[in-house]
C-alpha cells in the first residue's frame, strides 16, 4: 500500500461509492478506477477492496449481481438509491470540510485573541 493510502481511512467508503456513480463495475475495475482516478496515489492491495465492497453491500449502499465473463463468474456492483444519497451527503460534507481547511491554511488571517 502506498503511504498516501493511509489518507483513505475514513474516506474509502465515499470513494468506492464514487467509482460506481457512472455505472456498474466489478471489483477489479473499481480498484483500477480508484488508482487511476488518484493518479496512482491510492493503490490499495486489490484483495482488500472486495471485503469493503461486501460491507457496503450489506449496508444496502451498493448491490451486487453475478454474471459470466471470459468463462468466469464475475460479480458487478451498482449504487442503490441509498448509496446515491450517501454519496451526495459525503460529497457535500467533504466540500464543506475542504473549503474550511483551505481557507484556514491559505487564505484568511487568524483572528486576534487579545
Amino acid at each position: 500500500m502506498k503511504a498516501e493510502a493511509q489518507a483513505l481511512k475514513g474516506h474509502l467508503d465515499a470513494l468506492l461509492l464514487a467509482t460506481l456513480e457512472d455505472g456498474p463495475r466489478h471489483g477489479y475495475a473499481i480498484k483500477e478506477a480508484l488508482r487511476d482516478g488518484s493518479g496512482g496515489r491510492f493503490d490499495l492491495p486489490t484483495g482488500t477492496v472486495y471485503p469493503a465492497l461486501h460491507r457496503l453491500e450489506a449496508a444496502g449502499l451498493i448491490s451486487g449481481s453475478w454474471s459470466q465473463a471470459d468463462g468466469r463468474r464475475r460479480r458487478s456492483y451498482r449504487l442503490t438509491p441509498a448509496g446515491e444519497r450517501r454519496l451526495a451527503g459525503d460529497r457535500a460534507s467533504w466540500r464543506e470540510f475542504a473549503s474550511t481547511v483551505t481557507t484556514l491554511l491559505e487564505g484568511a488571517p487568524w483572528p486576534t485573541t487579545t
Partner: protein
Amino acid sequence: MADHDLIDDYLTRLARHLPADAVAELADGLAETYDRHRTGGRSGSAAATAAIAEFGEPDVVLAAFVRQAPGRRVALFLLGFGPVVGACWATLLISEHAWTWPVPAGLRLAFGLTLLAVVAALAYAATARTTYRRTRASAPGCLVLLLLDAGLLSTAVTTAPALHWPFVLAAAASLTRMTLTVRALPRLLA
C-alpha cells in the same frame, strides 16, 4: 481461473478460509490482473507474481475479509449493546424482587450458563483476526440469544406480579436487540 500454478496456489490458500463466492470473485479479479500483465508482455510466472503482488499477501487479504466479516461486526455490536440490555433487565429484576419468582433454581442456572456461552461465542467471533471461520461463531450465538431474550420476556410477562416502567424498559431493550439480530441473521447464515 488464470492458468498458472502460482495463482492456483494463492487461491487454494484463501479457499481454505473464505466463502466460495468470495474466492470466485477474487479469482476473477486475479485472472484479469494476470491477463493484463501478460498482454503487457510479461512471462507467465512474472505476470502471476505481479498479479499476486497487486492483490496482497494471502494473510493481508484474509485479515481484511475477517475485519469486515458480518459475523465479526455483528458480534462486536451485540457485545457492546449487551451491557445496556443487561442493565435494563437488572433494573427490572431488582425492582420486582425477581428472586421471589417461582422459577426453578435449575432453570436459573441453565439460563446463566447459556448466557455465558453466548457471550463466549460472540467474543470468539469478535476477536478473530485472520481466521474467517471464527467469525461464524456469532451465528449460533445470535440464535441462542434470540431464544434467551424470548424466554426472559415471556417469564417476566407471566411471572412478574406487576408490570411497571422497568418492564417497559427491559422489554424495549430486548425487543430492539431481537429485531436487530433477526435482521442480521440472513447475512450470518449465508
